[in-house]
């Protein structure tokens, strides 16, 4: 139980974090009101509308925050991490079988008027268990056994949530990679994953040629960085890449002519160069025992494989509707009334806000229902339309401040558990922020995921309140006793 006298509430709680939390909640509430406000204005407190309901959610969330801060011993979270994790895991599995189909996903429990999504709670329990696991004194993430343990803690709920067809929520778990990185996991892996994603997208949106060219570029640059020298070989490589980059254009010039020239496709030349340099790198790497050269050649091989398998799978294995969805997600097809309708509407709403926005309740796009899910997943549209770029700037800066503050606090913690948990919280908020806002402005595919603290909905608000306030409580405890 909390002890009020030790250092005093004022000093021990990170008030800046609490204030940014409160600001975001209020901003969310106001924008929920704006997003449902139509020709017949109602009170923001009207319980028949979402703004009124959200007010109730906010009050209860604050109640929860108080309980976490003052009624629960912060030590409880660490000791109860495993049973809570397992309990939520059971809920995650059960919900698949008992829930109704909501737009293809099975993730909601319904008790009369109250709906509840265990995937939201799962973020908390996973964070707690991960923090608990990684903070064990004998845990070393570079050890395969330990790494696999951590991967299981993250991966199991992630896969179950994927099975619920909640792609967005599952994607959030990718954020735990940042936690692992902070705790010593190789940065090269993170780098490789990001490069792989970029190559995948480039292959589909541009062409395998461009993608392969980009891969070569990455190999050349990382090779140079790895060896630590920008010598003549680097510049030769750059020159070759530049020529290869111009090749499709040159070949377009001569493709009209008959004969041998027309038959040599730029792709073959590129692959020829790739093969030659691959062999050269392998031989040189082996002879001179330069590990980075061997790794680079392996990376090249993996990259080429990825590019061609992506293209093959996309064109030959995926079915039409799957292909269409990916095409729209990647902005390859203009389809404002089909799958891409939501993004198009959302970007129109945000774009029409301009610098200062149209003003509170004056949004035409969001209040008239052009934007789907406007009070939940697309709440940022209302911010963008009614408060403009300045409003977006304030909201994003608030989030950045909050995440920054959590990371700084986490780094200041003496307990590894608090630090790792703090990183988990920061990663969750970050992933939600990036995916959600990225989705509304066309940077990310449309995957339903709420904007933390802003979006309408009890599950989400409660989950983030608990997530954040557990950290505030843990951090406060440290300050209190050390």
């Amino acid at each position, binding site marked *: 139980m909390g002890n009020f006298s030790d250092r005093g509430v004022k000093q021990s709680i990170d008030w800046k974090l609490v204030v940014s939390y409160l600001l975001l909640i209020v901003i969310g509430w106001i924008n929920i009101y704006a997003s449902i406000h139509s020709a017949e204005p109602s009170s923001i407190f009207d319980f028949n509308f979402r703004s009124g309901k959200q007010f109730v959610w906010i009050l209860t969330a604050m109640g929860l925050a108080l309980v976490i801060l003052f009624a629960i011993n912060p030590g409880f979270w660490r000791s109860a991490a495993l049973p809570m994790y397992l309990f939520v895991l059971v809920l995650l599995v059960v919900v698949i079988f008992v829930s109704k189909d909501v737009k293809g996903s099975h993730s909601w429990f319904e008790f009369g008027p109250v709906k509840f999504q265990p995937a939201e709670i799962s973020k908390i329990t996973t964070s707690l268990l991960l923090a608990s696991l990684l903070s064990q004194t004998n845990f070393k993430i570079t050890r395969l056994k330990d790494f696999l343990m951590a991967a299981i803690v993250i991966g199991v709920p992630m896969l179950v949530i994927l099975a619920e067809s909640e792609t967005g929520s599952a994607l959030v778990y990718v954020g735990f990679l940042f936690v692992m990185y902070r705790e010593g996991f190789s940065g090269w892996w993170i780098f490789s994953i990001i490069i792989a994603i970029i190559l995948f997208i480039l292959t589909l949106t541009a062409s395998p040629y461009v993608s392969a060219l980009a891969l070569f570029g990455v190999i050349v640059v990382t090779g140079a960085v790895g060896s630590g020298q920008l010598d003549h070989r680097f510049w030769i490589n750059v020159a070759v890449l530049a020529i290869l980059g111009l090749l499709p254009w040159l070949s377009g010039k001569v493709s009209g002519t008959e004969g041998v020239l027309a038959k040599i496709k730029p792709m073959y030349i590129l692959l020829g160069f790739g093969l030659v340099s691959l062999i050269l790198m392998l031989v040189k790497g082996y002879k001179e025992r330069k590990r980075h050269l061997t790794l680079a050649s392996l990376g090249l091989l993996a990259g080429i494989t990825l590019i061609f398998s992506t293209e093959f799978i996309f064109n030959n294995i995926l079915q039409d509707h799957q292909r269409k969805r990916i095409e729209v997600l990647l902005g390859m097809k203009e389809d404002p009334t089909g799958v891409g309708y939501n993004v198009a509407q959302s970007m129109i709403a945000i774009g029409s806000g301009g610098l200062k926005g149209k003003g509170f309740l004056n949004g035409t796009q969001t209040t008239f229902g052009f934007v789907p899910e406007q009070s939940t997943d697309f709440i940022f549209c209302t911010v963008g339309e009614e408060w403009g770029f300045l409003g977006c700037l304030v909201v994003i800066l608030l989030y950045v401040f909050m995440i920054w503050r959590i990371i700084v606090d986490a*780094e200041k913690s003496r307990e590894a558990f608090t630090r790792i948990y703090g990183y988990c919280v920061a990663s969750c908020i970050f992933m939600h922020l990036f995916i959600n806002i990225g989705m509304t402005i066309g940077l990310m595919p449309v995957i339903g995921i709420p904007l933390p603290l802003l979006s309408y909905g009890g599950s989400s608000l409660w989950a983030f309140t608990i997530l954040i306030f557990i950290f505030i409580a843990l951090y406060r405890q440290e300050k209190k006793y050390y």
Partner: protein
Amino acid sequence: MTTEGNNRSRILLIGLVAVAAILLGKLFFIQIIEDKYKINASNNSMVYDLIYPTRGIIYDRNGKIIVSNKVTYDILVTPREVTPFDTLTLASALDVTPDFIREKMADYSRNKNKIGYQSVVMLKQIKPEVYMKFAELQYNFPGFRGQVRSIRDYPVNAGGNLLGYVSEVDQKYIEDHPGEYRPGDYAGKTGIEAAREKELRGEKGYHIYLRNSRNQIERQYKDGEMDKEAVPGKDIVTTIDADLQQYGQELMRNKVGSLVAIEPKTGEILSLVSSPGVDVNMLADISQHYNEIIKDPHKPMFNRAVQAPYPPGSVFKLVNGLIGLQEGTLNMDMAYPCYQGYHFGSHKLGCHSHASPLKLEEAIMMSCNGFFCYVLRNILENKKYKNIDEALDKWNEYVQSFGFGHKLGSDFPSELGGTLPTSKLYNKRYGKGGWKFTTIISISIGQGEVGVTPLQIANLAAIMANRGWYKIPHIVKASEGVEIDPKYYERQYTMVDTTNFKKVIKGMWRAVNNGPGTGCTAAVAEVKGLDICGKTGTAQNPRGADNSVFICFAPMDDPKIAVAAYVENAGFGAAWAAPIASLLIEKYLLGETTRPDLESRVMQGNLMGRVKAY
């Protein structure tokens, strides 16, 4: 570990800031740099609810309304809002069969995706009485509503071809008038409606509403501040005399042909009848009757008065006579023999029996063919000209000055120019030097290669009345806000002097007023005290009986009206055309006829049986 940790923490914080910068960068781009989204947004949520202006009213020359507007209702359906309803009640309220509604609803459900949340027109132009019945029950039928539409109303039967019709624009029309029309707009397509479409149509206005993505209107944009009111179309005052037009329509009933009356001093068209025509009752909703009209073998949509090229027949003798006088190849004392016609070689151009030889005045009065063969021969064989080619082209020039062989330039749409022969035409047909006067002798009496419209011969009547000039016939008078081309105020002089006209007009007067039994051709047209001057014509018609032609003007000394009547397959000019034209003059000058027997014979005459449909 701690330093390494701090290092990694710093990298993560940099990553955080970088991602935030990417988000803000993209936001900056779409919110501040790119305009596309702002434009899209206004299309997206603002509904321009078009307000159609009321079309201008069309008046006759005396201020009588001949075309106005009346209110009807369209019934619109928004299929997505329709709930199950009682088909029978709705059918009886709308005065349609239940099957009609069932079919429509089935059709909408088939096209459900195409229609979406939009409204479609289920019924067009229902009467206000029917609409009232529906409106009382409307609350039972969510998704159904009425929309006011103004359509044309015709208080006077002034003839569909004269007034013209208004109908929805099609794709081609929209393309031909770039930027002026949108699908769903209406435009005047023929007649006066088309001639003055620009004034009559007015300017569309709009109310801007904000709508949601389900196409539901939520409220007015800026409380209507940005709305634009419709500007009603301008009223048009025509030169038409509604009573005369209506009377003309009655005279021409059951006959095929045209009746055109012009006020000679001004060139104003007093009436323009093309028979058979489109009934004004069909005009308001012409698309409903389109098939019926198209199938009619007499082509009611074809405005014969301005579009039919007819041989003028003997009325053309006036022109040849005048040219002869002007050229000096004819004078009042010349007399030519006529023995049942003009003989050349083994051929002859026949004529009826009359006294012989004749001078010009009698030749006009009796419409002697032989005399006018000599007249044209003298013109074409005039020594003044090098050869017949040159003489014919001079003749052509003369005839052109009478408004023939080219469009008169009236403001009535789709006017036809007619045909006139030239030396070039004959050289092409017969070879140079391969033709002479006798080859083309039929143009002496207005046959052969001469093709004129009824409007052109009415104009000839006006030229006769004015003794040598005309003003371009037109249908619209200048009125407040409506201007007409200044060319309509200018006198167009023929190449023949006024003095020569006086000589010919004497013959025209005698043709009507010389008294029965004296050989005058148009005694039937005589009205005591009106001094009608006229000239009959009997034009060959390859499709059956001759066409009956008559042009006239009255009174002789101060002409108020010039008329041309052209009745297809009606025989001699005196048989139908002369009575019709003279009755019209009588009506105009006296208000009613002094010859009720003749009037009823004309009105009851049905010549449709003689006309070969084509």
